[in-house]
């Protein structure tokens, strides 16, 4: 049980790592929000899942059930609020005139790179 919990927490950290790398490497604001918004949700939920399993492996009395329920609520709230905040940020960026880098914009840039 503890091994499974540790694996879940490690997986969560790997996804967090992916999110951070994406945040640094992606070209513009919108693609960066992709990395940040998604890496957040799953990795937090995985880490909380790991906590739940670890909590169970320590024996199950009343206090443990208490902690279990609270952790489940935290996971649900993160699933609810994380996409909402991602959307709010993206919308704010879009409406303030920050045009996303799209398919058509990208090609001339690549040509420029080839020339240089």
């Amino acid at each position: 049980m503890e091994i499974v919990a540790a694996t879940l927490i490690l997986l969560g950290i790997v996804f967090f790592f992916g999110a951070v790398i994406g945040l640094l490497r992606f070209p513009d604001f919108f693609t960066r929000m992709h990395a940040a918004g998604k890496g957040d949700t799953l990795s937090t939920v995985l880490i909380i899942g790991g906590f739940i399993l670890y909590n169970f492996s320590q024996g199950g009395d009343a206090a443990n059930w208490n902690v279990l329920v609270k952790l489940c609520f935290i996971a649900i709230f993160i699933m609810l609020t994380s996409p909402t905040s991602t959307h709010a940020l993206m919308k704010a960026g879009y409406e303030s005139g920050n045009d996303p880098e799209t398919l058509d914009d990208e090609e001339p840039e690549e040509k420029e790179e080839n020339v240089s």
Partner: protein
Amino acid sequence: MKKLAGIVVFTVGLILLYGVSSLDDFPSWGTPDSPANKSPLSQYFIKNTIVDTEVPNMVTAVLADYRGYDTMFETVVIFVAGLGIFAVVRVFEHGGASRVVTADTKPDIIITNTCRLLIPLIQLFALYVLAHGHSSPGGGFQGGVIMGASFILVALAWDLDIALKRFSEKQAFICSGIGILIYAGFGLASVFLGEEFLNYGIIHKILPGVDSPEMARYYAMLGVEIGVMFTVTSIMFLIYGLLATRGKMTAGL
């Protein structure tokens, strides 16, 4: 210039590290020998809180009972802060000459729907923090702030008019006054029963089903915290509304 700044920051950091770690001015973290823990006052609280008040959380007992005067006037300070901001910022517009301020964007369905799901839960959590102030971290101030945040969330997700329909300016001021009256009422009740102001133990004579002064303190502390929560909730919301709309208290932001 950058190098100079770097050197300054580094030196200050070193001095701070030296000050924190190597001098004997500060006791190490959490040691029982620290002056704060050795003083007779803290010894008294640690030994007697549960005997005097039946409250497991010492902080709540100190805050709402042993140090009741201080907390009462803290609540008054919050109330006066709200009044002060109202007096400085609030603009009353007479006549129809003023520009009508409306929100420039429609409420977003994703944000409003998430808020619809979350706001009742936030309010429930605020009440939980209030009611559990006895046995876990929490109490009137924290619960009040969370409760106020739930109303501010309405104003952020929709606009201030919708929030004011639920909790109008007048209601907010009345509630903040009621909070202090509840607090002072518990104090006066103990005066009329023949004890000092805010010495709640005596209230067991009029509370039904409570036979010991200790349990009376326990319940009176909850009542006092409810009063604090009323004040903090409404003043939080008022300050947000006044500052966000430059005193107009209309849709705006």
